[in-house]
């Protein structure tokens, strides 16, 4: 009987997670090259309900709402011209590669600058790599041809924060680099806001389901067995 309480509660936790992800998407509505996350929800551990008297099967009942893993939605964002010579955008699939202290990481954020050593670096100072994995020198005139930047194909892209991804990379993705432009965040404000409203109402429905079950349990614990058969 109290199974329902836990099913609804797990649904509330799942909606809270969805809401947190949508909030993160909105917070990154201005982050260049940002890709929204989505997590699927699925039913978990169904059990077969049966009539205890006759043994006839009633049907299956899920015992939980489970999170089904997070996927990154790689749909491209709009490419916005900035006029800055060290801004780059990839039109089509692919990632820029940067060498960080923790190894090579991949990004769609092409807002780069120069280091004191005259290399092309990202905002955190990590060198940007060419197609062969070597750093790129910025000539004295301060511009780098778009073709100098390596574009890598990334399998199993996983998010690291700081606009970086990890995954299994191979050089030579199909995307082409444009200089003087940035890829805007792929967050769709309208869709994200609608998703937040949806998560909010599901959360509320599940809360009401818990309250309804609680009322049933209250009735069961206070009214069943009382001599006048009701009213407590």
């Amino acid at each position, binding site marked *: 009987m109290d199974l329902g309480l836990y099913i609804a509660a797990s649904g509330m936790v799942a909606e809270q*997670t969805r*809401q947190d992800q949508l909030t993160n998407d909105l*917070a990154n509505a201005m982050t260049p090259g940002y890709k929204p996350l989505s997590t699927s929800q699925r039913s*978990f551990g169904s059990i077969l309900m049966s009539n205890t008297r006759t043994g006839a099967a009633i049907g299956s009942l899920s015992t939980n709402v489970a999170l089904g893993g997070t996927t990154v939605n790689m749909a491209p964002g709009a490419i916005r011209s900035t006029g800055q010579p060290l801004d780059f955008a990839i039109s089509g699939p692919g990632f820029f590669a940067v060498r960080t202290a923790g190894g090579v990481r991949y990004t769609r954020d092409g807002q780069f600058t120069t280091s004191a050593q005259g290399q092309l670096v990202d905002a955190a100072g990590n060198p940007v790599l060419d197609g062969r994995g070597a750093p790129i020198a910025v000539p004295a005139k301060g511009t780098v041809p778009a073709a100098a930047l390596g574009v890598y194909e990334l399998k199993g892209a996983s998010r690291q924060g*700081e606009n970086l991804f990890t995954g299994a990379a191979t050089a030579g993705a199909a995307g082409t680099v444009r200089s003087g432009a940035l890829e805007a965040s792929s967050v769709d*404000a309208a869709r994200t806001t609608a998703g937040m409203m949806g998560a909010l109402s599901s959360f509320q429905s599940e809360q009401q389901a818990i309250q309804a079950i609680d009322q049933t349990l209250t009735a069961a614990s206070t009214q069943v067995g009382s001599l006048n058969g009701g009213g407590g």
Partner: protein
Amino acid sequence: MLEGLYSAAAGMSAQQEQLDAIGNDLANESTTGYKSERFGFRDLLYSQVEQVGTTSATVGAGAGGQVIGRDGSQGAIQQTGDPLDLAIEGEGYFQVKRPGGQISLTRGGAFGVDASGQLTAHDGSLLSPPITIPRGVSAGEVSIAQDGTVSAHGRRLGQIALVTVASPDHLLADGAGGLSVTAASGPTRPVSGAHIVQGALESSNVDLAGEMSQMMITQRAFQLTSTAIHTQAQMLSIANQLRA
């Protein structure tokens, strides 16, 4: 449970920082030689939310922002007619020595002459290396060539050196209209290919229309992220009403 509130707040504060950078650009729209700021957003750390017996979900901590550097594009060169107004066409900076002795780089080229005849910036900083205008020579008689050679009546008085660094984006604004060299910017080196225009000043390169539209976009994003806080607060209140 409260993570969502904080990631929305982080996003709002990053957007607030961009509004500040835009405000700074707008305030310096008529500052000689000012270069507008390049602002960048980034996402923050991700954590795994575990739910019993299931695969985990990834939840991010919001957004951060930072000034990446400056827009290096040339500002418009405006004729002023003052012989000691100098504009740089191309890359590079004038070097001035502050009263405290530290070297500062600037593209604001409104120079004057102090009591001892030395060329100084508007705040009294000496041009470095110093150039002295001899007594009896008026400002109007000083001619400054494109390569920075200063002469009067055919006599060479010195040369104004233009310098730059490997990474101008990492120069630090010193709050007195100049920029100071940092470890990340690299040391100064002479500039080639730039020249000096006498009797003119370089306007700021702030693009008013671009700044205003960016400000509107950022304000909208700020507003949207604040609705996320509101929604998160509603969810907390619903959870609180479970035992109503």
